[in-house]
């Protein structure tokens, strides 16, 4: 139980915050600073699906965004530089120089938490939205990725070629254990068309110091992810040509399990 004076102070503070929110003020929200992870999903204006993950480094009024996207099944990596502004909880990351015309517009609702974002590109228009979350870790290693996570992913696989291209939707939910040493084991349920299946198996992984990570399939990067929110959440993108899949891991625990990746 809190002593009575503390209760009074907390009550007064809650009234102040409530009044502030009701008035629509956003004065207590500060501009983002430091490393962030980004996930976007949507489509190109020609109807092809689009998904992306990335990491942004924000320092005062400038940003650097490393973005990896699957644009209609083609994997494209970009580095975007620009300026940052925040007015009344509205965030603008605006590309400069060769990146002029790229804007990531956001709505901040709570300091240090997820920010809603939507991407605007004048050169190649897209409709893609998602979230931007603070990394809250200075650096990462394989040991950062230790524990059990649930995940959910959805997207499309390109089927056919030329003018006969179609997009087959796919959805997955599953669990994945990471041993903190570069080996993971997943178990998932898959819905694709009318078929429903289960799959499981090991995957090697490597985590880079910038808190991005790759899941490897036969030594080749098959998924790219970014560790955010102090290791609690990890959006990821499938890197295989013809796939447009975006997923998100959520941590269940940090327990270490010995795993064997052949």
């Amino acid at each position, binding site marked *: 139980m809190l002593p009575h004076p503390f209760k009074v102070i907390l009550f007064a503070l809650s009234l102040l915050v409530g009044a502030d929110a009701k008035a629509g003020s956003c004065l207590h929200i500060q501009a983002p600073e430091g490393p962030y992870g980004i996930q976007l999903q949507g489509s190109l204006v020609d109807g092809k699906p689009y998904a992306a993950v990335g990491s942004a480094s924000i320092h005062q009024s400038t940003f650097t965004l490393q973005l990896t996207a699957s644009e209609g099944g083609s994997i494209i990596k970009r580095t975007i530089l620009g300026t940052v502004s925040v007015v009344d909880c509205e965030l603008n990351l605006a590309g400069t120089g060769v990146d002029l015309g790229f804007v990531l517009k956001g709505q901040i609702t709570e300091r240090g938490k997820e920010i809603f974002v939507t991407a605007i590109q004048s050169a190649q228009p897209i409709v893609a939205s998602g979230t931007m979350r603070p990394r809250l870790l200075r650096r990462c290693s394989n040991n950062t990725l230790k524990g059990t996570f649930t995940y959910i992913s959805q997207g499309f696989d390109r089927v056919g070629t030329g003018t006969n291209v179609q997009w087959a939707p796919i959805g997955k939910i599953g669990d994945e254990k990471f041993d903190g040493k570069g080996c993971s084991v997943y178990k998932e349920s898959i819905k694709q068309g009318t078929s429903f299946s289960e799959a499981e198996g090991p995957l090697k992984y490597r985590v880079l110091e910038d808190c991005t990570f790759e899941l490897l399939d036969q030594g080749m990067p098959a998924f790219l992810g970014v560790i955010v929110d102090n290791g609690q959440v990890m959006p990821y993108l499938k890197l295989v040509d013809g796939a447009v899949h975006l997923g998100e891991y959520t941590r269940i*625990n940090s327990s270490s399990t010995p795993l064997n990746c052949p």
Partner: protein
Amino acid sequence: MKTNTRLSLLLMALSLGASNPVLAKCSPGELRGLFGLTTQALGSAGIEGTTLSLFDFKNNNSVEEIYYVNTGGASWKSTATGNFSVSADCHLTLEVKDSGGTLYALKGRINPMNKLVNVLQTQPNNADVSLGVMRPVGLKRCNRNRFMGRYGFLSQGRVPLKNNPLTLVPESRLGWFIAEDAQLEQPIEWVNTNGVITKTPPTQIPSETLESCLIDLGQGGFAGVIVERGHRALYMDLAEGSYRLGTMLKVR
């Protein structure tokens, strides 16, 4: 000494939380009460439908659902009842039927740490792929005080181009509003319709928070559900052919 004792207790608590595998186990009573869910049905043409559901998980493993569907150029509200089970390894199986006997089946994975449930619709006669994250309401019932204050919002989906339901184009909307007694004051909204950016003028939208924790916005224009004790709300567009889902987050 006092600091060391506190530090030891903190480290012990952290190590228990971090390593105890029991925390990853689920009991049959893991899901109780109200949960909100939105799903988008993906077909070969993109998003072909949306749903918004409020599930009430009962003690006897029965479940009641109030849901909205928008697909095939029509939207409607209905109810369904059925059963669910939760396995020790936190897997959810759920089946409900509406009054016409139509089956809706979900498979889910519960995160016991935050009660979020990743769900995948499983009935084999449906070629669409529907999935989403079910979130706890965290309340037994709601009143209008649970949906008050300033919220940021983001929505995305496919909408009719120039009100033609035969031509759907992608659209996203980003902005904020203040929820008051019976309406939303929305000063700004950025709209990206098929790559064309517009900014809407300030607008007012009637809103009603129901005791069930569902929200009616725009007098039947949108359906919403309050989750996470009012910190977040999920919503869907009910306009004909407008398959668009959104999330609102309270500014705090």
